[in-house]
């Protein structure tokens, strides 16, 4: 694992010097700021049942579906398209170290993007002067949810990037999986035909992977170990498959 940090620091440095990172960061903050202001506007018109933070984090899927593919589609697809994976893997570095290093760098970037949205809450607290708008429970719960679910989302992105040497294809695969996972399971969970008695085990499984449900638990301050296990095992699987996929492409190249 000693090369993990070499690769991680190299990846982070590359992200920091790349203009694309800053453009993505600005666009992300612009979108989040836009969402945040429109939520506050709703609040100013009529008082709402939920705090602004709760509503804000409810819309986490919007940036996730378009940011995660953009952040991760490059990481392995680019290496393979340029052929630099060949020079990388002929040094005493294992595929595991390469995949984990790239994963960790993408995850750190994802976290720092989300971390920058805390500025929105700071501005609100500083200038609104209205204590009931700032409810620290949902904010902390929301950020923990983002950090934990991000593990899985980024791992899915890395996996998609390992599948194709074309960045666009990798991005589309990633977006499709994320939409299926976040919106698809929600849709399935609400369908009535699943209520059928004989489909009960299936229904239980769908309920278990309801990321929507997880989100609500987190913002209510409920940290369920089953949910943590879901994200941990999902991340683990996606990363294992990424490593296997990189190695399989070498075997069958």
């Amino acid at each position, binding site marked *: 694992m000693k090369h993990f940090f*070499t690769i991680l620091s190299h990846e982070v440095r590359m992200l920091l010097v790349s203009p694309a990172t800053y453009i993505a960061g600005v666009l992300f903050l612009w979108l989040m700021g836009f969402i945040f202001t429109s939520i506050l506007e709703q609040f100013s018109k009529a008082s709402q049942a939920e705090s602004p933070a709760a509503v804000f984090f409810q819309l986490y899927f919007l940036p996730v579906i378009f940011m995660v593919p953009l952040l991760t589609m490059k990481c392995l697809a680019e290496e393979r398209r340029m*052929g630099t994976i060949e*020079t990388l893997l002929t040094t005493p570095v294992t595929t595991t170290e390469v995949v984990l290093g790239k994963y960790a760098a993408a995850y750190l970037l994802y976290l720092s993007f989300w971390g920058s949205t805390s500025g929105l809450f700071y501005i609100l607290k500083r200038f609104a002067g209205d204590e009931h708008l700032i409810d620290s429970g949902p904010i902390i719960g929301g950020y923990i949810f983002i950090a934990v679910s991000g593990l899985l989302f980024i791992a899915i992105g890395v996996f998609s990037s390992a599948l194709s040497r074309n960045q666009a294809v990798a991005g589309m695969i990633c977006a499709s999986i994320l939409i299926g996972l976040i919106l698809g399971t929600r849709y399935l969970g609400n369908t009535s035909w699943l209520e059928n008695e004989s489909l009960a085990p299936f229904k239980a499984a769908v309920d278990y992977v309801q990321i929507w449900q997880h989100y609500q638990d987190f913002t209510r301050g409920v940290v369920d170990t089953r949910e943590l296990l879901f994200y941990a095992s999902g991340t683990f699987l996606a990363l294992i498959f990424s490593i296997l996929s990189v190695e399989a492409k070498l075997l069958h190249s």
Partner: protein
Amino acid sequence: MPETPHPPAIEVSHLVKTFSGVPAVNDISFAAPRGEILGFLGPNGAGKSTTMRILTGYLPATSGQVSICGFPVASDPDAVKRRIGYMPENNPLPEEMRVSEYLYFRGRLKEVPRRKLGSRIDEVLELCDLKHVRHKIIGRLSKGFRQRVGIAESVLAEPPVIIMDEPTIGLDPHQILIVRDLIASLRGRMTVLISSHILPEIEVTCDRVLIINQGRIVAQGTPANLRREVLGHSAYEVEAAGPLGSLAFLLSSVDPGLSVASEGEADSLGFRKITLKTMNDDDVGEAILRAFLSEGLRVRSLCRARPTLEDVFLAATRRSWDTVAEEPKEEGRA
């Protein structure tokens, strides 16, 4: 095997690699002692790059054994990767890094101690004449510089074995000269395996040449030996004027094997170009000259034609095509 005092730097025995049933490398065996510069020649698709990739542990072999410095590639890839410097075909480099950053990153990956790395990078930059571009972004460098960055990178960790896939491709003659000197400067210290299309390159730099075609080794040896073995004759070119009627008799008095291979048209001064061929390997130039002069022929020039590696290469690969083409017939008869 690592216990033996000096195992050969590269040892390949009965290496076979098939891609979905189609053999790319077909039963290749060779060895390179330490410090040797070994050239790898072959037409496109002969299996050069595949063999090199297997040597580096990047691709697994279908069957056969490969070891680097006594460490088998299949079972001990880590030990092998610590002992090689590899420059792949087309020399892929990250576009957005600076030269010195790239070398630093590669040095860390190759486990060069952090204390030594700075001075080592200065050394290879000096060696490859890259000092003034060390802060440039790789994507903006010209082909020649990029190629030298690749070479600098492969010698960075001072590995005992260096494998370069077409290091001189796309370089101008001046740069080729620099690269050639660079590779020659490694002689004795490192074992170098290079493949190239540019045959004079291989001829000047390499101690030994392997010619490979359709996944098989069709000829190997020093360039001089290859000439003798594959072409099997030496040739002389004479420009002479005068009566040439008694030429055949005259030549047989010099060397019974000597014969006229071709005779050119006489030019305005009456000189014609005559090509002579012999199986004899000794230099009979002086004897030929004496014989011509004793017959009263005027001689303007005499030289021993040196067949280039190109001729050898063409002869060797053609020969192997012939054998491959004949094989099905024999099977049919049996």
